[in-house]
């Protein structure tokens, strides 16, 4: 394997690591907190909201937005580290 290729596959590996972590968060806040564990979470309250209901209708959306911007930052840093930014 050439140097260039090793470089590229190292970049790809780190990229996949980020994806797995971010998608895990994505799954937990929406399918986890908003759907599968909603009933348990509903016993906890956040002001006027039951927590599970809040995740399903608002919380998960806030987290989604944050996730994408975190991804943008991480990838910009990764691009720089491997010299792929332009």
């Amino acid at each position: 394997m050439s140097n260039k290729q090793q470089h590229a596959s190292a970049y790809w590996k780190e990229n996949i690591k980020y994806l797995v972590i971010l998608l895990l968060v994505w799954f937990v806040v929406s399918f986890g907190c908003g759907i599968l564990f909603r009933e348990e979470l509903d016993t906890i309250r956040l002001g006027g909201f039951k927590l599970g209901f809040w995740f399903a209708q608002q919380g998960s959306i806030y987290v989604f937005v944050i996730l994408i911007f975190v991804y943008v930052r991480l990838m910009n840093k990764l691009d720089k580290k491997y010299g792929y930014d332009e």
Partner: protein
Amino acid sequence: MSVQTWTWILVGVTFALYFGIAIWARAGSTKEFYVAGGGVSPLANGMATAADWMSAASFISMAGIISFSGYDGSVYLMGWTGGYVLLALLLAPYLRKFGKFTVPDFIGDRYYSNTARTVAVICALIVSFTYVAGQMRGVGIVFSQFLQVPIYWGVIIGMAVVLTFALLGGMKGITYTQVAQYCVLIFAFMVPAFFISMQMTGNIIPQIGMGGTVEGGEFLLDKLDKLHVELGFSEYTSGKKSTWDVFAITLALMTGTAGLPHVIVRFFTVPKVKDARKSAGYALLLIAILYTTAPAIAVFSRTNLIETVSNTSYSEIPEWFKNWEDTGLIAWADKNGDGKIQYVAGSALEGKKPVYTDARGVSGERMVSNASEAKNELYVDRDIMVLANPEIANLPNWVIALVAAGGLAAALSTAAGLLLVISTSISHDLIKKQLKPNISDKGELTAARVSIFVAILIAGYFGINPPGFVAAVVALAFGLAAASFFPAIILGIFDKRMNSQGAISGMVVGIVLMLFYMMKFKLNMFGGGTSEDWWFKTSPEGFGTICMLVNVVISLVVSRMTPAPPQEVQDMVESIRIPSGAGEASDH
């Protein structure tokens, strides 16, 4: 000034704006026509994507649907936003690096096969047409309601408007018009929400007001839950769908969103891979403003509605009730003859819509001939929750007119985006790539314009004469996209070993299975069936999830039994994984 005058002024001003932009941003080449020249800034692209994405359904119907279904409405909120995470992380940057004009282009090249390209074109056309027919109907309804013209005139006006900016500017004109439309629609959505949140909870931010307290110090949501239980509905914050079905529908909507061709194509218009990522972030941020406000509006208007009408006698009902009764969105049948409105769980009517007789009842209400046996006396169309909300809350006339302008902006921007995808699929993927490869740039541009024209005529026809199936299948366009494109694109990027045999068989089986299930359970063909007969207890709306999984499994199995893709394709996959050197979106 009257609502009518305000409506004409606001609609007139916003339309002049859209036309002005369309003329300013005329497209001269196919590249400008398909991908706006590839030089759109991430923020502008984010706004255009958001407007493209938020249709008449998001603007007018979504808050209403949530208002009537409570927790169950969460599937739309999470599904239609969570898909952007998938889009940003798994699709947008790589497709931008790949640098072609369309989704079938990617599929055709990645799977080195014109069969794959054709399958993708067919899937794109099925998805886009089911979606656009619903939009044109939406355009017609909004026009007819606010400009007091018949629906078919509404559709025709809408066709003329969309046609003008699509023909002139292609993607370039549409992109900048959509930026303006985003501003109009979000402003129109937020203003009434601020007013109503302030009125009901004393907090001007609707997202926070939703969890706030009302007069008497009770939490708004607790109060609404209590009202719901008293009237025999299921608790607002719990819903009644099964957990599995909520899960399946949400996943189908998410993956469908990420696979919708008119959304994906937007990420070809920015200059760099970096910008594609950022632009997906902006798009979701801008969409989230509306999507987190909608559940708040749902709660406010639901509470308002129940409190205003429940056990109120018809003679004391506010003016808006009678206005909307006249337009056919509200019906009241005084079944126990006490002159008061009993609003409880159960369907007030036989069938979906009220059938009015010409007569008036004792209290002066419009009589219906299809009242049901159930105790409930009130029929309310759910679209009213956004359209009539400002009236219900007694807001000034200009706010009511603003909602009309916003609804139109939402419907028009989405219709334009979809028509462009349809025309691109035909002129680029069919004519240029398959039928007539030597066609000149100018000839292709003409073909694109002609196909937009034809597409709009077909869409308009379905808008005026909606076949019964349109309403039933629009929501399923997501299932179709999830069942066909999503796996083919993802596997094309993340699985180097995926070959044409695998992808084609996956797409074909996925979309055929989804179409079959839709026809069986939505259109009652092949013997039909009720919710007891659903496969794996999954509703047609959620079945896209199953089809997607089937698609993935078939793709993987078939690809491993057939030869690996050629070396140059594997090299191409390597290269799209690296962000630098994206270059311009190009033809070849």
